[in-house]
């Protein structure tokens, strides 16, 4: 079955330290992968995507993600965390559905807490 997993419900990082939010996937064919962020009481905002090409993708707010085909992972990273990065992060993957259309399936989300 096609799926996406975020193995950590919550990640705690001290301000200034590097952060990683994990995502693994299982799809047939080439994956299209996305990261979104949700701040409290807001909708989701697009951060970055991997379609093809360079395995290291750079996105908004200093975030980047590394596509690893052999490990079927797409972890979100940032070299130096800010308190304002505290939010809920979602990984999503494009899949083909029963009608041969595409849709996104979403991970359960990871709550990122950056402590001063």
């Amino acid at each position, binding site marked *: 079955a096609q799926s996406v997993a975020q193995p950590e419900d919550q990640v705690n990082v001290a301000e200034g330290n590097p952060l990683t939010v994990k995502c693994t996937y299982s799809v047939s064919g080439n994956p299209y992968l996305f990261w979104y962020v949700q701040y409290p009481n807001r909708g*989701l905002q697009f951060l970055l*995507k991997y379609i093809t090409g360079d395995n290291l993708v750079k996105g908004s707010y200093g975030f980047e993600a590394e596509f690893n085909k052999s490990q079927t992972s797409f972890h979100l990273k940032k070299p130096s965390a800010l308190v304002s990065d505290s939010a809920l992060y*979602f990984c999503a993957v*494009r899949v083909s559905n029963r009608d041969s259309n595409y*849709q996104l399936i979403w991970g359960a989300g990871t709550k990122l807490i950056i402590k001063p």
Partner: protein
Amino acid sequence: DVKVTQSSRYLVKRTGEKVFLECVQDMDHENMFWYRQDPGLGLRLIYFSYDVKMKEKGDIPEGYSVSREKKERFSLILESASTSQTSMYLCASSLYGQISNQPQHFGDGTRLSIL
């Protein structure tokens, strides 16, 4: 800038009522989506539409219907609300006719409580 507007941030309704959630986008996007968000479950797709008057079922369409009479507006209808439909509802839109590699733009959500 891209703008997706959901008509209500908070809504309280009673069991059995017919509930309408409205969503408007100003980007001339072809695709529009309705999701529900529940803790620990991520986002689950209810319905989507890739053109006016077109609709496709998502993963959890039971108990819901949708309407898209104009390109900019996508309505979600709870035919007879139940307590199990208490949730955060998110509307989104994106470019193009197929659900391809374009990012989705989200509204701020409607937190719906069914009593």
